[in-house]
């Protein structure tokens, strides 16, 4: 799709976009040239700047094209630096976008946001219900990436996106870390960025799996029980991580659970190491459950779900209570669908007159 479409009215334009398959099924903001130009100007980047190609359709993602997706998704211009960084992340070859978009697995790009952009380009929610409805930045940033993946990348359900069912995170899937209340350093600092940087980390993830733990932290056994519950969620025998092994996954600790683990003397690396050790199955078990994928002669040998503890991304978000979340990943493709982090260039942002 290229060029400028015309319509008699805003309502007609919306129906036309639906008919062309350019929407996610929900109404979009019609991307008029004026709206797109405002969005692009806010990015501070040239409209024709090419960020890269998006598979499987190999569409060229220019800043203008990304701005169109952002307008359609309902983004405020403030959000553009985050949308741009998210697009750059999925274009990175390590993300395996082409294969990820075409797979039969249910996988969606989970956008994790760290640093000052959570406030400057938002607010991007990180507390109660942050992955649910009611948070404009979370909702529209994730949706903008999806619309870019459809309209620039060409992923259309049933013809080029072959997800057997998909999952609701394919509409939008964006979350900030609650850095202010977390006992852990921010995720992006653990990944090698400076604390004052703003960073998106994108991973092709399944829907969130709830992890119930009534741990209180009163005893050492509490922390152990919580780790066991989290590992059981991560290493579920029906997940790709367990069967294919490798790739990455996400653990979103709620504040209570984060404090229980740190009070037990664990830092992020310690939590990752303990989860890594527990996220494993015997060859015999894998042969029984998924014989087409199981390898190895010694049925008692362990196959770890992840190649390294650092492949388990741990952050804190959400409200206080019983439930944390884990998000296993697709973890296939030439690079095993790596999580990719990109610095958000918010210093390029231009405040718009009258905005």
């Amino acid at each position, binding site marked *: 799709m290229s060029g400028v479409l015309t319509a008699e009215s805003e309502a007609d334009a919306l129906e036309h976009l639906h008919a062309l398959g350019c929407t996610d099924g929900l109404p979009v903001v019609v991307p008029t040239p004026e709206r797109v130009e405002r969005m692009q100007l806010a990015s501070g980047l040239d409209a024709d700047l090419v960020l890269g190609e998006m*598979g*499987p*359709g*190999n569409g060229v993602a220019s800043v203008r094209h990304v701005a169109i997706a952002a307008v359609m998704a309902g983004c405020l211009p403030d959000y553009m630096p985050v949308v741009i960084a998210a697009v750059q992340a999925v274009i990175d070859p390590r993300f395996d976008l*082409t294969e990820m978009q*075409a797979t039969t697995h249910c996988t969606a790009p989970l956008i994790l946001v760290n640093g000052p952009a959570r406030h400057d380009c938002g607010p991007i929610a990180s507390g109660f219900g942050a992955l649910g409805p009611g948070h404009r930045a979370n909702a529209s940033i994730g949706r903008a990436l999806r619309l870019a993946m459809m309209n620039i990348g*060409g992923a*259309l359900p*049933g*013809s*080029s996106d*072959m997800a057997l069912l998909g999952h609701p995170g394919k509409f939008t899937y964006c979350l900030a870390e609650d850095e202010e209340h977390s006992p852990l350093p921010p995720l992006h600092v653990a990944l090698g960025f400076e604390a004052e940087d703003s960073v998106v980390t994108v991973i092709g993830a399944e829907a969130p799996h709830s992890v119930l733990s009534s741990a209180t932290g009163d005893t050492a056994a509490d922390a152990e029980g919580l780790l066991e519950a989290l590992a059981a969620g991560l290493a579920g025998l029906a997940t790709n991580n367990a069967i294919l092994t490798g790739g990455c996954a996400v653990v979103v600790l709620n504040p209570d659970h984060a404090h229980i683990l740190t009070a037990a003397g664990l830092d992020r690396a310690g939590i990752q190491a303990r989860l890594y050790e527990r996220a494993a199955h015997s060859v015999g078990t894998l042969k029984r459950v998924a014989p087409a994928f199981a390898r190895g002669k010694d049925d008692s040998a362990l196959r770890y779900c992840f190649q390294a503890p650092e492949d388990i991304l741990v952050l804190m978000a959400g409200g206080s209570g019983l439930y944390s979340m884990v998000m296993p990943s697709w973890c296939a493709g030439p690079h095993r669908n790596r999580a990719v982090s990109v610095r958000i260039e918010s210093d390029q942002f231009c405040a718009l007159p009258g905005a």
Partner: protein
Amino acid sequence: MRDGIAAARLGVPAVSLVTDDFWPQGDFVASSLGMPDLPRVRLPHPVAGTGAKRLEEVAEAIADRIIDALEGKK
């Protein structure tokens, strides 16, 4: 389709085996990568998970078509 196109680009005769349900995706990928006419043989869907006996039946039914496609016959 991508594997077939990658092989064809290297000058290796290639034919892609594509099931009914994935035929539109095959069209899309072949067009996107600039080889819309890459030889393809159509298989019933599904093939995976249908058992060894069924796989043998499918192979028997399409073997000649694969050879024809590799030899450039329609």
